[in-house]
């Protein structure tokens, strides 16, 4: 009980002494406040920018980073269900069935490539709508005869915006044109997007009901018939780091249900590597910036501490003359620095939280404050403050008390 109360008293005396030198304490703390604050803010901005950079492909080039692809032939409707249910990290699965049908719109008749899929497709690849609407869950549920043209298909069929609502005959069935979407631009290379040169999308259920699962292929003059349920299943995984593991998990699962290896899995590895490289670059840049600002902050703290000790040399001399031991002087300074560093660090955290918030508010930039950055900057600044605060104190305590007393 004796020791804690004495410690408390020392801390109280330290606070008193700091309050007695308000300007100096304020200046010392300022270095700490902005050291901690700027590191947290900088890391938050960097983290936000890095996250945005990694998220960007998701929006614009859609399936680049977090998708695995599995193709082709021999996939079953069940496979999609299994994948969706067995892997919690799979956010979405999109089944794809490719058909060739003769289509007629008004007077134009054309051989068309159709893609039977679900509304998830449009969320996954984010094809912007030109007119009308995309496929809806209701279309699938009702086996509706609805068709969404691609820009490419619309051009071939000479369809315009006013074509929406018209009837498109596909393989003898009459479908209503409900929308036109922009085509695959080709910029998302390496992701084997299966809708290049696709003319239209129809609901998967409708495709199955109207046209069945038997595909007829003409090659070298002969006809072959093949049962194909799905041509492709696209699985979206929740984070880049999970992709490879998920792909091998799916592979294991498929192997169990398919006696013959009539499928293949493709992972956009190059894109994954690129994402990782981007992240690494960000980490290096941010780390350097944070390190430099902490160093600058530390030098600032040391400066003001040295100045403060010089200013207080006489005080140290007085205390020594009265009977304070060297270690008591060091202790006094250490406690003061610790109180100062802790207070400054806490204010710094507040500022470090405020600045990113303001940046997001004013500049609309995304910022992410991680608890690691809070701990790191506070910890390092405390260490820097104590080390740089202790050094001048040790130096001061070693002074000859006679010299210290003479100091003006």
């Amino acid at each position, binding site marked *: 009980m004796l020791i804690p109360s004495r410690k408390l008293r020392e801390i109280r005396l330290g606070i008193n002494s700091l309050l007695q*030198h308000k300007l100096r304490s304020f200046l010392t703390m300022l270095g700490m406040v902005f050291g901690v604050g700027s590191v947290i803010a900088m890391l938050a901005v960097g983290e936000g920018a890095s996250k945005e950079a990694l998220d960007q492909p998701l929006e614009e080039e859609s399936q680049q980073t977090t998708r695995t692809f599995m193709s082709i032939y021999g996939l079953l409707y069940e496979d999609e269900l299994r994948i969706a249910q067995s892997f919690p990290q799979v956010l979405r699965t999109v089944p794809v069935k490719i058909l060739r049908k003769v289509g007629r719109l008004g007077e134009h008749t054309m051989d068309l490539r159709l893609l039977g899929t679900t509304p998830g497709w449009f969320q996954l690849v984010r094809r912007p709508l030109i007119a009308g609407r995309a496929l809806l869950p209701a279309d699938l549920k009702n086996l509706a005869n609805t068709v969404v043209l691609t820009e490419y298909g619309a051009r071939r069929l000479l369809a315009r915006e006013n074509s929406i609502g018209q009837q498109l005959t596909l393989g003898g069935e009459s479908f209503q044109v409900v929308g036109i979407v922009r085509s695959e631009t080709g910029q998302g290379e390496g992701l084997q997007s299966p809708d290049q040169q696709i003319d239209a999308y129809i609901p998967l259920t409708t495709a199955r009901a109207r046209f069945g699962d038997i595909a007829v292929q003409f090659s070298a003059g002969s006809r072959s018939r093949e049962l194909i349920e799905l041509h492709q299943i696209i699985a979206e995984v929740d984070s880049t780091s999970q992709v490879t593991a998920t792909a091998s998990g799916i592979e294991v699962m498929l192997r169990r249900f398919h006696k013959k290896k009539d499928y293949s899995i493709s992972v956009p590895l190059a894109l994954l590597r690129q994402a990782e490289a981007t992240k690494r670059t960000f980490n290096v840049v941010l780390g350097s910036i944070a390190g430099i600002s902490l160093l600058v902050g530390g030098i600032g703290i040391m400066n003001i501490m040295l100045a403060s000790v010089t200013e207080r040399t006489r005080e140290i001399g*007085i205390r*020594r*003359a*009265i*009977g*304070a*031991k060297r270690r008591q002087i060091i202790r006094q300074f250490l406690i003061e620095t610790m109180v100062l560093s802790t207070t400054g660090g806490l204010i710094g955290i507040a500022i470090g939280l405020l600045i990113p918030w303001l940046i997001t508010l004013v500049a609309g930039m995304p910022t992410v404050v991680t608890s690691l950055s809070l701990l790191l900057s506070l910890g390092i600044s405390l260490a820097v403050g104590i080390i740089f605060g202790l050094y001048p104190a040790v130096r001061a305590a070693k002074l000859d008390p*006679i010299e210290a*007393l003479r100091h003006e």
Partner: protein
Amino acid sequence: MAEPAVQEKQASSHEAVLEKISRFYRMGGNEVRALDEVSVSFARGSFWAILGASGSGKSTLLNLLGCLDRPSAGRYLLRGADVSQMDDDQLSEIRLRSIGFIFQSFNLLPQSTVAENIALPLYYQGWDPARSSQRARELATRVGLQERLDHRPMELSGGQQQRVAIARALANDPAILLADEPTGNLDSATSREIMQLLSELNEQGKTIIMVTHEEDIAAFASRRLYLKDGRIDRIEP
């Protein structure tokens, strides 16, 4: 530490005994003899003035007596204990328990109150706050500053500041009060008040050793030691 115990009896009537104390400094290549084999005994309850021209070794002698410095040669017995070979921590402890300093420029902590200044030695002695502030009040009353406990030194006159310093020097109930030109920064009326206060303390039994260069201030002391070039010139009476 068996030796000091023996000497305690021999030196019982003396607060401080210097035996052939020398203090040399190295300045550049030269050796400066600030004190050269000074031997003197300061009796318990005596009031000494140390006089001499500047550079005669007065301050060096006072610093040695106050355990702020260690002699290059010779022995210093303080209340029978040989302090001449003690390390820094031990000297700090001696200063804390047995020495009271009064300086020419008062040397108060400017940001602390009168009460805090007076109680400073008690803090290092580990007194609890309630007791030490009680003691600070008593000491302030003794030097006539009971109304000024919460003032800062800058709000006080020079004479009042020196009274605070005297109260602080008394806080640890020291064996010796050492005063280094205690009136050097004061006008003559205030100087007289301070000297009267010191005389009273001496009458109450405190041993006082005071450095001064003014004869009329030295006249308050019962004995005067004149230094010249680091040696004792003469002692009066």
